């Protein structure tokens, strides 16, 4: 046995490196076969000095002779992956091996393998301990690989790297590392995981990726990462006509609970890694076992709840929230039961809108449409309708007209008369929520991005959580009316407040008209305004000539006239004139902001510049706020200039599908979204929060710039 092993070693000797461990200095070790160097192995780091406690990346660089290949972590039908065993000083930590996207090679006999030609850098993060007493550290590792061309030869090398210990880390081998970092698969954005669906037949797994552009791309492939004992056959692409990509992965061996696989979705030079979660138990929606997935769901539902609560404070809801507070003041004198009833009705209104929205989205989603938050604002007719509703409310508050209810009910203001009650409260709930939609509050982005990717039940749950969050303060106040004791008693002052609220609504109207102007041009704004004018006249006629004192005939006549006026002007101004206006070219992307296109982004990044990408929309108040208060502030503007960071704006006012797709890559279904692509790591973009502060943006810009400076 021993002699046999000796014999084996001897005969392999010419296949193995000669000098392993014999001499100390040279960093590169070779694998020589028949006098030819097949593989040169070297240990490299992205830093020239080691800073205690500061992680850096080290890599095993394998240079293969032309035509020879080493293997990926899943070698395919034959071969074995390259392995590295570290020999580090105590206290050091090593991260997982980062495998660049491999090539798929096919050998005679339909043998598919995954590996690397020419050279590959297998990177790992190393974390030194907080305290290093030596002036230099020696990092050593034993690497094992199999290199094949027509024949296969195992190789190994003891590689080492000596680095001085210093306070400040100095970048090294930047070109090499950035070349191979570019070749790492990116993790699949959470929203895109919506587009990924697995199904299991007894002997195969089907992977469906609902992505039109991927479906049109050539050379899309799936590289599986099966975990033993699962054994997969060759994935094959199935032709589909519906704009999705389908891979069938034969299962030669798999337990019943294997519902999906980890792996790479490869398209050209890029790849998305599906990630570990697919390797175990399918998506959260399909996972019946409460565990990590449902924890995540609970957390995101909580985000939804908090987001809903914060919606109350968003600028677009401000007029309505004022009205509601006002309503409470009026309710203060009522019986507890009635107050609580009104609170419930208001809550029901909020829930009704969100429920309707959820059902609509589920219907759209099941019809295969792309769904996004606030998508209704991308429809100009919705904005026109909103404008009309806001104006009518304002006129009502000004006292131009009042709603008269039959059956002797006392007249009152539309929506919040203390006596009129529940229907009004309900309607207010709906109204407040409609206005809230364009503001994607903090927390909501993440929560909705997640929910839209999930099953109908989860979308519904998420919307209910948001509704609950938004209505919680009202419900609590109405359940505990004692807290209202501190507000003033009702009196004539309320009329003035009411009128003032009318102006707040008019301000909202200005905003809506501006949205229309941005989307469809100035003509659109004026035609809508003309219609709104006719509508105002209608309201005035209603208030002045259709009073309860007037005769029945007069009242009917006035109503007919109003209907004629409103319908007629609606038909002409909206149906004819407004409809004829064209979608305007974006006017948001002016100034020193470059309009976003994926190509432009790529070319800027390729040119080695950092890019700040602002996803915005005319109707997005949070976006406007961030832009005015932060992005266009003198300090931030000069920082952009100083660091030479490219400013790019993606205007989503008209729901541009290219931008929708890009948003989804970041797991978002709405704006705002702010992304910073550092020049040093363009495929590791940094997502900023939805509410910006100057300090935060300056911080991010500076760190991106520092990294760039460090590279140069």
């Amino acid at each position: 046995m021993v002699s046999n092993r000796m014999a084996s070693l001897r005969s392999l000797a010419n296949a193995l490196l000669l000098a392993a461990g014999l001499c100390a200095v040279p960093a590169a070790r070779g694998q020589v076969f028949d006098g030819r160097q097949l593989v040169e192995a070297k240990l490299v780091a992205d830093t020239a000095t080691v800073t205690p406690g500061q992680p850096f990346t080290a890599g095993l660089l394998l240079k293969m002779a032309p035509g020879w290949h080493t293997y990926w972590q899943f070698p395919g039908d034959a071969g074995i992956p390259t392995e590295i065993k570290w020999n580090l000083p105590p206290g050091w930590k090593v991260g997982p091996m980062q495998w660049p996207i491999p090539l798929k090679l096919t050998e005679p006999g339909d043998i598919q393998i995954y590996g690397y030609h020419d050279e590959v850098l297998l990177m790992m993060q190393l974390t030194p301990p907080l305290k290093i007493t030596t002036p230099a550290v020696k990092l050593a590792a034993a690497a094992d690989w199999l290199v094949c061309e027509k024949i296969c030869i195992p190789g190994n090398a003891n590689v080492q790297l000596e680095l001085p210990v210093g306070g400040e880390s100095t970048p090294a081998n930047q070109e090499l590392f950035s070349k191979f970092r570019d070749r790492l698969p990116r993790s699949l954005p959470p929203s895109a995981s919506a587009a990924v669906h697995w199904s299991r037949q007894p002997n195969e797994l089907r992977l469906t990726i609902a992505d039109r552009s991927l479906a049109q791309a050539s050379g899309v492939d799936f590289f599986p990462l099966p975990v033993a004992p699962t054994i997969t056959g060759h994935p094959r692409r199935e032709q589909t006509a519906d704009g999705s990509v389908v891979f069938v992965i034969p299962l030669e061996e798999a337990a019943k609970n294997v519902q999906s696989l980890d792996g790479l979705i490869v398209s050209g030079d890029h790849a998305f890694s599906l990630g570990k979660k697919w390797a175990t138990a399918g998506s959260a929606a399909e996972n019946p076992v409460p565990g990590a997935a449902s924890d995540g769901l609970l957390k995101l539902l909580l985000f939804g709840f908090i987001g809903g609560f914060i919606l109350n404070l968003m600028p677009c809801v401000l007029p309505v929230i004022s009205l509601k507070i006002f309503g409470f003041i009026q309710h203060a004198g009522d019986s507890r039961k009635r107050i609580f009833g009104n609170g419930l009705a208001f809550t029901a209104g909020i829930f009704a809108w969100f429920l309707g929205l959820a059902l609509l989205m589920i219907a759209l989603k099941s019809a295969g449409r792309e769904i996004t938050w606030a998508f209704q604002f991308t429809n100009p007719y919705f904005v026109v309708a909103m404008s009309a509703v806001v104006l009518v409310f304002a006129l009502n508050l000004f006292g131009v007209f009042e709603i008269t209810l039959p059956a002797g009910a006392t007249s009152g203001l539309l929506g919040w008369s203390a006596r009129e009650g529940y229907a009004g409260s309900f309607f207010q709930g709906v109204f407040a929520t409609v206005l809230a939609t364009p503001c994607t509050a903090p927390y909501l982005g993440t929560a909705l991005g997640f929910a839209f990717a999930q099953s109908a039940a989860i979308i519904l749950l998420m919307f209910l959580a948001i509704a609950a969050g938004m209505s919680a303060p009202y419900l609590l106040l109405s359940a505990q009316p004692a807290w209202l004791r501190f507000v003033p008693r009702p009196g004539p002052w309320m009329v003035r407040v009411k009128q003032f609220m009318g102006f707040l609504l008019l301000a909202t109207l200005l905003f809506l008209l501006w949205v229309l102007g941005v989307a469809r041009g100035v003509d659109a704004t004026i035609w809508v305004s003309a219609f709104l004018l006719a509508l105002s006249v209608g309201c005035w006629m209603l208030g002045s000539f259709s009073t309860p004192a007037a005769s029945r005939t007069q009242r009917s006549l006035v109503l007919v006239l109003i209907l004629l006026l409103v319908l007629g002007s609606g038909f002409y101004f909206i149906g004819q004139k407004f409809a004829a206006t064209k979608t305007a070219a974006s006017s948001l992307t002016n100034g020193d902001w470059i309009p976003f296109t994926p190509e432009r982004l790529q070319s800027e990044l390729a040119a080695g510049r950092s890019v700040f990408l602002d996803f915005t929309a005319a109707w997005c108040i949070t976006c406007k706020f961030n832009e005015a208060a932060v992005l266009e502030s003198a300090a931030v503007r000069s920082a952009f200039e100083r660091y030479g960071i490219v400013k790019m704006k993606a205007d989503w006012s008209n729901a541009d599908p290219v931008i929708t797709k890009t948003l989804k890559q970041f797991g978002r279904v709405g704006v705002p979204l702010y992304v910073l692509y550092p020049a040093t790591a363009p495929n590791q973009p940094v997502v900023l929060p939805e509410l910006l502060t100057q300090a935060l943006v300056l911080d991010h810009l500076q760190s991106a710039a520092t990294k760039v400076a460090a590279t140069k």
Partner: protein
Amino acid sequence: MKTKLLLLALTTIGSGALCAAEAPKVGAPAPAFSLPASNGKTISLGDFRGKYVVLEWFNPGCPFVQKHYKSDNMQQLQNQFTGKDVVWLTIDSSAPGKQGSLTPAEANKQIAEWKMKSTALLLDPEGKVGHEYAATNTPHMFVINPEGNLIYEGAIDSKASTDPADIQGSTNYVKAALEEAMAGKPVANAKTKAYGCSIKYDH
């Protein structure tokens, strides 16, 4: 009518192509074959009904094969089971001109040099049987039961490496499958991922 005929033709061609590519499944009958052995005899799988048969894909130039032969691991296994009336067929599917391709004389020399204990070393230069079994690796192991059904397919053992030191401490799947089957037990690991060099097929 024409369309129907065309469809039928396409389906037939399609299924034919599929069948050719389909690997035999564990539990299903092992495909029959006849191949010349290095000793000049023609060996047919059908001759061994009623016996356990082990198929071992072989390429003497492959470091994974060398791992098991130069350590005497493969020979010991062959010796142990041929002694229990198991038929052990070593098959070389390397195409002429590629690594591992052997003439009968070279094959006999290899048997002598390595003291191979298999029942026969079969030569499959066209890769016909290799393709029939969808064998991809050397070594790639198949175990067939006396009823002619495949009961194991995959690696020789549980440690995918070329290091002979890994043999000790690994689970030998072929040994386990044969012992379990002979004891009337189901085979626990009936299918594993074969490891080794790719078989040097011509096509």
